[in-house]
């Protein structure tokens, strides 16, 4: 049956606070738990722009963050961006539910009035913290390479000679270092990485009259195209989810040291999944099952599309207005030129990785590929027609509907593991309307199956009698 209209909805996990590539260090005993982070990653040649949306939940004065970076960043390499950028990219690229309506099989004339309704849930970032530092501390072999005031943040770029000194320096300056951080700091120090240490300027926050901290963006040139997730595991409890929104000129971004796999997509699922609050848990369980099935050590592709402003269709269906010039520039894609749209190619890749210490011993390394194949996580709900079903087409439709719903429930179980005896009522919801002829109208009170058998036996018997009669006549004539 054909679609009549389309409704899309996007989902998001609503998981609380999180960490990203760095780790949070709490000065007081703030409750910290890391579950989800969002990163915008722009890569153009050797230039990387990383924007981090951190959902630190706690008192802002307790916030501090340490991120390894390959070079000493200049003041102009550090910015804050509007948090709406994340919610925009998130809602635009998130896996979507598409809703179709079957046509009424017994109506001859049907107006097809396509419309799109978009629903989305967004995440609100929060963060926090504060502190003071000395220029150089020979005792700890830690050098403060640079110090900047960046809007509501105080930023230090540190270099160290050994992890013990860096740890001691951080503790001495009031940072609380999570267990296990030292063993990870050491390899980063020896690999020549610097440390981007961020805390909150409380005065500035007061002046801004808000507790919401905006995402930080850093920019640098380096051959390394990676996210140092190992440091983020230092204060993480269990699995962490990270969404990466990657933008390049050429095509998809993929992971080079873990498998990048596509999520199951374009699957027909039962209509009850669209009920309020069901799509979120559905996608969450779908992701968990896919994560388990792929060995718990893969990176998942959720969206990939050429989003060049003048490219045309960027999703099917779109769940929101696509990001345009200003959003791309804000994200760090500085090659985008509104005056020259034909020379502003940009490809959007959304990756979702659930990582933990055991399954992801290495940091995430990426590469830009020329792969331009489009992909989106898309789950289809089809609403049944509910009009008059008395015509033969209607009866046929109801039988098909029953079969289709069985398949949808099987698909749901395969995707999410959801199984319930209650789903039988969904499958057979309209089966009562099927008026199958139960009796043989030619032979009253005899069911068709029995009638057919009896008729067959009678035909055979008649044939036998006729044949005997013919033979008898032939003998008589002879």
């Amino acid at each position: 049956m054909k679609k009549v209209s389309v409704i899309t909805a996007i989902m998001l996990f609503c998981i609380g606070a999180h960490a990203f590539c760095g780790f949070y260090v709490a000065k007081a005993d703030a409750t910290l738990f890391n579950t989800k982070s969002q990163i915008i990653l722009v890569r153009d040649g050797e230039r990387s722009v990383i924007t981090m949306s951190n959902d630190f939940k706690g008192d802002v004065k307790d916030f501090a963050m340490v991120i390894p970076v390959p070079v000493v960043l200049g003041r102009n390499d550090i910015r804050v961006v509007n948090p709406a950028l994340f919610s925009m990219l998130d809602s635009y690229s998130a896996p979507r539910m598409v809703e179709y309506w079957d046509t009424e099989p017994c109506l001859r004339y049907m107006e097809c009035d396509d419309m799109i309704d978009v629903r989305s849930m967004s995440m609100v970032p929060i963060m926090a913290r504060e502190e003071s530092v000395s220029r150089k501390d020979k005792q700890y072999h830690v050098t403060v390479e640079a110090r900047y005031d960046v809007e509501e943040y105080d930023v230090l770029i540190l270099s160290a000679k050994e992890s013990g000194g860096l740890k001691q320096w951080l503790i001495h300056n009031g940072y609380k270092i999570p267990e296990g951080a030292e063993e990870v700091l050491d390899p980063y120090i020896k690999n020549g990485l610097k440390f981007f240490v961020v805390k909150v300027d409380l005065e500035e926050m007061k002046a801004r009259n808000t507790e919401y901290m905006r995402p930080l963006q850093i920019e640098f040139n380096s051959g390394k195209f990676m996210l140092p997730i190992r440091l983020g595991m230092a204060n993480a409890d269990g699995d962490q989810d990270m969404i990466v929104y990657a933008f390049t000129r050429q095509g998809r971004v993929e992971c080079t040291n873990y498998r990048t796999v596509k999520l199951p997509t374009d699957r027909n699922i039962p209509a009850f999944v669209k009920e309020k609050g069901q799509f979120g848990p559905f996608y969450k369980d779908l992701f968990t099952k896919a994560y388990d099935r792929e060995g718990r050590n893969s990176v998942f592709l959720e969206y990939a599309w050429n989003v060049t402003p003048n490219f045309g269709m960027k999703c099917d269906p779109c769940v929101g207005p696509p990001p345009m010039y200003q959003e791309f520039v804000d994200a760090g894609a500085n090659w985008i030129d509104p005056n020259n749209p034909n020379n502003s190619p940009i490809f959007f890749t959304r990756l979702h990785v659930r990582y933990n210490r055991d399954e992801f011993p290495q940091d995430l390394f990426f590469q830009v590929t020329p792969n331009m194949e489009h992909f989106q996580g898309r789950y289809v709900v089809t609403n049944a027609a509910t009009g008059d079903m008395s015509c033969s087409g209607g009866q046929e439709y109801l039988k098909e509907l029953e079969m289709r719903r069985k398949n949808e429930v099987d698909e749901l179980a395969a995707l999410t593991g959801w199984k319930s005896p209650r789903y039988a009522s969904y499958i057979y919801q309209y089966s009562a309307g099927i008026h199958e002829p139960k009796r043989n109208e030619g032979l009253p009170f005899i069911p068709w199956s029995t009638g057919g058998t009896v008729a067959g036996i009678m035909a055979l018997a008649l044939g036998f009698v006729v044949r005997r009669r013919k033979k008898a006549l032939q003998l008589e004539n002879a």
Partner: protein
Amino acid sequence: MEAPKQSTIPSRIPVIDARYFQIIYLGSFLLLGTFILNWDTLLPKVMVVLGTCMVTQLAFIKVGKAHESSWMSSLITALGLCLLFRANDLNTLAFASVLSISSKFFFRIRGKHLFNPANLGIIGALLITQDGWISPGQWGSSVIFLFIMGALGSILLFRVGRLDTTMAFLIAFFVLEYCRTVLYLGWSMDVLIHKFSSGSFILFAFFMITDPKTTPDHPWARKIWAVSIAVLAFIMSTWAYIHTAPIWALFLITPLTAVFDLLWKSERFRWLKERNLNPI
């Protein structure tokens, strides 16, 4: 210099050419990747690579008087391309295929290939078309796949006498990575193990660098040659951050095979069918 020993080519089942094994193994890996690991191995792309390689080879058999059994080598090259190389455009795949097979006939020194055919095809297409790529993470690090790959690769290499090349490469690379990753940087062993459990890396070590037509003839020359690839690949991956470093290292080192063959002379490898028809 001492007279080189004749290379020992195990021939317990001499009636079967080792290339049959390789075709079956690589074909199985392609099916495994497509159906178990859900690669984007689209049938038209596979058909273009297989078709182009076979047609090109056929042309050289007819025109260039290549050995008739060389269709097996071209099928191996085609499967290697299907396993390693990705591209948007079918023309890019066709280009890589023609380049791979042609290289066997155009780039020759003393009867041996100057480049590994699939390797040259991939590098050439990467540099010229800008449309192709290699996905080093596509195999993941599943222990089962690695075991299957390693076991099958070992059987094959034992038959063609090139297990030494793989072992020299793996050992050299492991030692270098161990020294840097564990001893110097201080990462725990699981980081190193994860690096080495990459399916792409194992496939490369067992099935790409061991092509008897591009490896040096003398066993010791082969070992040194393999170690050179390991050292170069290590440098390229560590300091130039090239994720596909072994492929590039092989491309750069393979032409030196001719030099190794001049320095260390030994019996030339021939496939079983070639030996049957053209005894050494």
